């Protein structure tokens, strides 16, 4: 896909893309999911880091990091959370200190998605401990094979080792691997968090496709399980409505962005809606399957709906829990006072 410029269609051609617009990108995503193509291993970098690189990166950084990200040669993981900094991200303590002409990083990150096999990590580190907690943070790009980096994979509840703890022990980070301004990492990171919650990561096609499969499951099982089907019919229809609502809402947002608008706190509404829609679709499917839902396949892996359900369970937690998102919606959209 990379060789034919299909892996990152919205990027400029020089980095491996086709420079298509937002609406064309949405159409591409619809086709990608309709073809039931696999989850992209490079998506952390492509969807979360790349928008930030385009906004804050130097030309040298873009030339260095974007092409191997697009080709899948370099996989990125995120370094946000720490043992004592989850929803309260500004509580992070991993630090970077000036030593010689470089930064030296110490501390620990956790729940690093794709950290078990990534080549690089992007994340926030405290570089001015005296500053107010949202200030004094810097956005670093760190190679996972640098001396002093230790990765401890964490098995997820589905048995996969997708995420990891990452330990930093005097890891040297040169200035060329600082993204954006020193001590201004919070603003840089929030730009990335906006893309994770908002438009760029969650193509509506994913939910339209899942809702269509749910309808198919319902129709095929209706005669065999009439009582279950009768009880679940409303949930099936609701999944169709919500998936379509998400699709239209995304196109609506895209129209606004193309007209020069931005996606601000509304991204938090998106995040709550897609993650809860995803979960509802999978819960309904499992209910439709009834006693068969628990069974693993011949390779002792969860079957499609169970696998999707286990994955969907993470949605309301990652990228800022839905409780945090609801606070953001209430405070920044409705103007309610901060707690």
């Amino acid at each position, binding site marked *: 896909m990379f060789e034919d410029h299909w892996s990152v269609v919205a990027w400029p051609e020089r980095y491996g893309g086709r420079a298509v617009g937002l609406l064309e990108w949405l159409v591409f995503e619809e086709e990608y999911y309709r073809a039931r193509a696999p989850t992209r291993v490079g998506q952390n970098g492509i969807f979360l880091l790349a928008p930030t690189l385009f906004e804050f990166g130097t030309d040298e950084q873009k030339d260095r990091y974007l092409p191997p990200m697009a080709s899948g040669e370099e996989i990125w993981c995120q370094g946000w959370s720490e043992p004592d900094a989850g929803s309260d991200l500004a509580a992070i303590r991993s630090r970077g200190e000036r030593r010689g002409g470089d930064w030296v990083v110490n501390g620990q990150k956790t729940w690093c998605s794709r950290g078990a096999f990534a080549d690089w990590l992007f994340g926030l580190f405290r570089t001015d401990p005296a500053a107010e907690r949202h200030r004094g943070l810097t956005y670093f790009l760190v190679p996972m094979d640098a001396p002093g980096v230790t990765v401890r994979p964490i098995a997820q509840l589905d048995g996969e080792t997708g995420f990891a703890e990452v330990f930093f022990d005097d890891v040297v980070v040169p200035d060329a691997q600082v993204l954006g301004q020193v001590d201004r990492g919070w603003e840089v990171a929030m730009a990335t968090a906006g893309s994770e919650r908002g438009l760029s990561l969650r193509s509506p096609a994913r939910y339209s496709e899942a809702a269509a499969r749910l309808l198919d499951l319902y129709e095929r099982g209706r005669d065999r399980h009439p009582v279950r089907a009768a009880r679940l019919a409303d949930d099936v*229809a609701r999944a169709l409505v919500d998936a379509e609502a998400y699709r239209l*809402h995304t196109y609506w947002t895209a129209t*606004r962005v193309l007209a020069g608008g931005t996606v601000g706190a509304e991204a938090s509404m998106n995040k709550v809606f897609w993650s809860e829609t995803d979960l509802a679709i999978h819960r309904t499917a499992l209910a439709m399957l009834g006693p068969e839902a628990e069974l693993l396949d011949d390779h002792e892996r969860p079957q499609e709906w169970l696998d999707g359900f286990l994955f969907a369970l993470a949605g309301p937690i990652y990228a800022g829990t839905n409780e945090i998102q609801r606070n953001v919606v209430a405070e920044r959209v409705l103007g309610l006072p901060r707690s």
Partner: protein
Amino acid sequence: MIDFAFHEQQLEFRDQLRAFTEKQCTAADVRAAWRSELGWSPARWKALGGLGVTGVTVPVEQGGLGLGMVDLALLLEEAGRAGLPEPLAETTAVAVPLLARMPTDAASPAQKWTAAVAAGDAVLSVAGPGLPTMVTAGAQLAILFDGETIYAVEAPQAVSIRRSVDGSRTLWDLGPEAPSATTVVLRGEPAAELWHEGCDNGAWATSAVLVGVADRLIEMTSTYAKQRVQFGKAIGSFQAVKHHLADALIRLEFARPLVYRAAWSLDFRDPEAGRHISMAKSAASDAAVLAASVALQVHGAIGYTWEYDLHLWMKKAWALAGAWGDALWHRARLLGQVDW
């Protein structure tokens, strides 16, 4: 090219109606209308005619603006926000388009009545599904369907009066007797087909009003949550309150694009319009009912009083959620289990 934005003129028209309702349709005006015999105000309807609002869908030749549902969407939303007691949705989105689509050779009083609507001199009513003999009180023309025949009854006479939980929806029950043969405008399959279109219009228009009702409920409630102090703080600073309001807002914001999409489908006669309308009505009904429930809970006891204005909008949400098919019915329709 996909364009999901409203045009400047559509937004301006909405703003004009908002400015009008802020003066002419305050909560006190809504209460006065609810206490009146009809439940709505012929004087305000006349003033809306002067603004061009009543004639949005009436052809230009008959004094209207000749516009479509996309143009009407924001106005109906505004009517919901204002709690407008006048039957704007039913007259402009159901009755007028139904009359326009009736065959011209039928003994149809179409042109006379649509011109009167545009001037703000008449409201027209269509007996919706589920309550087939009931029309809006004060309607000068009642359009009825008995399963086979569409009737257009001028100066309908009420056998009895039924009031709704929404005080603006006073209904005239015309009784079980079939209307006179002289009022028949269409029979058989074409009548049924046209009637089903009318029902779709009614469901869509109601969904647009419900979006406005939910919007107002959320606005009133977040304003209250910023002012009401308990434990030394505005209650809106508590997460339990924030999360209630965020949930209501999210349901509303994701219902909106379904309503706008369905309006487009009606204007462009999309063969899937029925599906789009059912999605819109299901989402808008749920959003408004959730907003009402959150609004009452966040307000607490004050919201349960007659004196406080909140109940005017809650009652509109409850009444309209069930009109022209409720959320359950429309979702069953999406699965092909029921239809008009």
